[in-house]
């Protein structure tokens, strides 16, 4: 008996799983490059877990004050937290430490990019329609969980930039109406920077609670995808809402997927080794009384910086009671509106279009101009707020006055999306029309061909 046969027997004898395994091996994956975006996110997450575990062995989750006497001369004699010192040491004195840390940071970036692109793909092809609303909701939850997770990882280092990021997050928490102050007092054990208890809390959330949460959401997400089967584009006549066509897990898909996994990991390690990211020893330690100009957060938080900067200066006050402190608008309400839109979009679309039927066949963006227009509108809204957040850089590089830019964006973030949405709608319509002309021409040509070909035969018959 061959080795394969013996291994399969061994497994089946112990688990009685041969029928399931056979199904898994011949599970069908419809083929399209854009279906790989979610996979890229999955593999980036695996790299994050792997590199993250390594980092935990060197990181110290303490904000106790220490004086630096390490190998990096510019920081000699400076006061810093143990957390920051441990990351400087990990980066500069631990062999392969910097490689792993930078790869971890790159992986976080690629993870979030991949999630976003995957979300766009799913949105613009209508893959979230029934019966996949729950898969969509799980995915959206994962996006926001991952944003928080990335923010915490970036904050844990306690360099100057991360400290500035954390105090802004704290202020947004503080701005929650009615409960903000209590919530932050509870979490930080006192007003910012709070007591030393906060760092271990953020640490355990970053390395245990959130990864487990994301892992569970991921499992449910993938399980539901597999149970309902993948969606597909209609490329062949055999494909329909009832029949799926694709490459089986084995042998077709396995080398592709593992190949993609290794490629993602490879690119991440190449980036981690060759392209510097977040050189925290240059930023220096954080102190509540220190800040630096021109600071920008990691890109995935740029939209929130933009939101915070755009709001005009006011708190909503009733008598002496501060109902809504300013950071609430840009830092909490804005992301909540985006989150709410994403959660409720499938439901909204069903209401508006009256399309309650289930769909396994995808649409192209042009097939549904209204959805595409709304999607482009919402995306450009978020992107414009993001761009508004970089007005200070524009001011620095091009000398355009900062206040003028902010006033422009205060209007344009609402006008722009309407314009871009309308353009998207028009482009979709035009593309559709163009295709129709093409189809009609083909049909007409085919008819004439048929006519000219059938004429002589008809005449010969007569």
């Amino acid at each position, binding site marked *: 008996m061959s080795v394969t046969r013996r291994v399969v027997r061994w497994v089946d004898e112990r688990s009685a799983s041969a029928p399931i395994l056979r199904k898994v091996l011949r599970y069908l994956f419809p*083929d399209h490059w854009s279906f790989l975006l979610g996979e890229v996110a999955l593999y980036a997450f695996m790299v994050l877990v792997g590199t993250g575990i390594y980092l935990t062995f060197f990181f110290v989750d303490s904000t106790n004050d220490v004086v630096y006497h390490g190998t990096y001369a510019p920081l000699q004699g400076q006061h810093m937290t143990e957390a920051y010192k441990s990351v400087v040491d990990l980066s500069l004195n631990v062999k392969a430490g910097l490689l792993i840390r930078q790869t971890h940071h790159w992986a976080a970036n690629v993870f979030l990019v991949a999630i976003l692109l995957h979300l766009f793909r799913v949105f613009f092809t209508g893959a979230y329609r029934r019966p996949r609303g729950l898969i969509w909701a799980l995915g959206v939850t994962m996006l926001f969980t991952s944003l928080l997770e990335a923010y915490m990882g970036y904050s844990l280092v306690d360099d100057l930039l991360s400290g500035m990021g954390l*105090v802004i997050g704290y202020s947004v928490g503080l701005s929650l109406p009615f409960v903000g102050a209590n919530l932050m007092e509870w979490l930080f054990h006192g007003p910012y920077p709070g007591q030393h208890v906060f760092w271990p809390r953020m640490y355990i959330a970053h390395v245990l609670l959130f990864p487990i949460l994301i892992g569970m959401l991921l499992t449910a997400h993938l399980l539901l995808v597999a149970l309902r089967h993948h969606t597909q584009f209609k490329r062949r006549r055999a494909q329909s809402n009832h029949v799926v066509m694709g490459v089986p897990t084995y042998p077709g898909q396995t080398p592709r997927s593992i*190949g993609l996994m290794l490629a993602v990991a490879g690119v991440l*390690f190449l980036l981690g080794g060759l392209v510097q990211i977040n050189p925290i020893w240059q930023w220096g330690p954080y102190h509540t009384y220190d800040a630096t100009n021109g600071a920008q957060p990691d890109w995935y938080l740029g939209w929130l910086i933009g939101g915070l900067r755009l709001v005009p200066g006011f708190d909503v006050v009733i008598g002496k*009671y501060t109902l809504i402190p300013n950071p609430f608008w840009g830092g909490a309400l804005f992301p909540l509106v985006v989150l709410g839109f994403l959660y409720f979009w499938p439901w909204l679309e069903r209401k508006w279009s009256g399309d309650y039927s289930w769909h396994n066949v995808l649409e192209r963006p042009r097939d549904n101009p209204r959805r595409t227009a709304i999607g482009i509108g919402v995306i450009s809204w978020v992107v414009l707020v993001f761009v508004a957040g970089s007005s200070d850089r524009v001011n620095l590089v091009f000398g355009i006055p900062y206040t003028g830019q902010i006033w422009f964006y205060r209007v344009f973030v609402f006008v722009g999306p309407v314009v871009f949405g309308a353009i998207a709608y028009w482009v979709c319509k035009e593309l559709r029309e163009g295709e129709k002309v093409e189809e009609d021409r083909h049909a007409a040509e085919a008819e004439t061909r048929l006519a000219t070909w059938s004429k002589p035969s008809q005449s010969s018959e007569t």
Partner: protein
Amino acid sequence: MAKAKDILLSGLVLVAGRGRRSPRPEAERVVPDYDADPRAETWAIVLLLLSSLCCAGFIVVYAVDRIPHQTQFLGLSLGLALVFFAAALIVTALRLVVTEELVEEYPPELHVGEVDLIASTVEESGSRLTRRRLFKLALLGAGGGLVTAALTPAASFGPLLRVKDYFGTPWTRGRRLVDEDDRPYKASDIEEKDFYTAFAEGADKEEAGASLVLVRLPTSSLKLPPELQGYDANGIVAYSKICTHAGCAISMYRVPTFLPDEPKPALVCPCHYSTFDPASGGTVQFGPAGRPLPMLPLEIDARGFLRAKGNFDGAVGPAWWGVRNRKPSPQS
């Protein structure tokens, strides 16, 4: 001896020959047979070999400390090892394994029979209950109780109701202003068009209420509102360094070089560019802050040292629901 040799030989034949059967006839194949592609196979093998080589390279770079740019070479070798491996697998996927496009039915919209069966199973299992609604309520109550009880210890994280902490600062009348190295500031140290960070003497510098920005303005340019009259010391004004918008440190001082054409002096937070006017009591000129910067009243003692004349005129730090309720007080 000969017998032993025979046994050994036959054993070898048995072991080596095990499982070698004639291949299954073509008709029984599960996966269709395709033509071989020796070139692609060579490529895949070469790529795998390159991958192993890179792995070895990684270990060498790790072990030998004299190699410069260690991080870069570590990343390069490990990254390439993975990329070569990936390439080999992609060649395998595209050229060496059978690419079948199979069709299959999607699962049905609803398993009507099964759904019915499950629902009936659950519903009929409760037939012995007479007070169903009460029973369900009791179940819910116990379940909710357990969850609430399990979450209660989370209250130990920190005080949920002690918001008076937000009003505490280290400032008391007579407290001296010191710099980052704990040297007390003299009024004569503070020059116009410059910007100083000061702390309460003896306080924890990280505490939000402890840090100040100090600037000196020409007394003629001061336009303090009535309730802040006398807060300056000969034109020296002190404000909390913590921005009232999102808690960053106010670390920029915009000073006009040619007054008529340029905006007046301003304290600016680099996080969201809240801009405060130091001449008029820290009022907001531009940006998202909803509240002026809290101002600390100053005086100059007989030896010329700067001292606090009291506490800030408003609560320090970013806004929350009670931030306007009362003035800050010295910490207990």
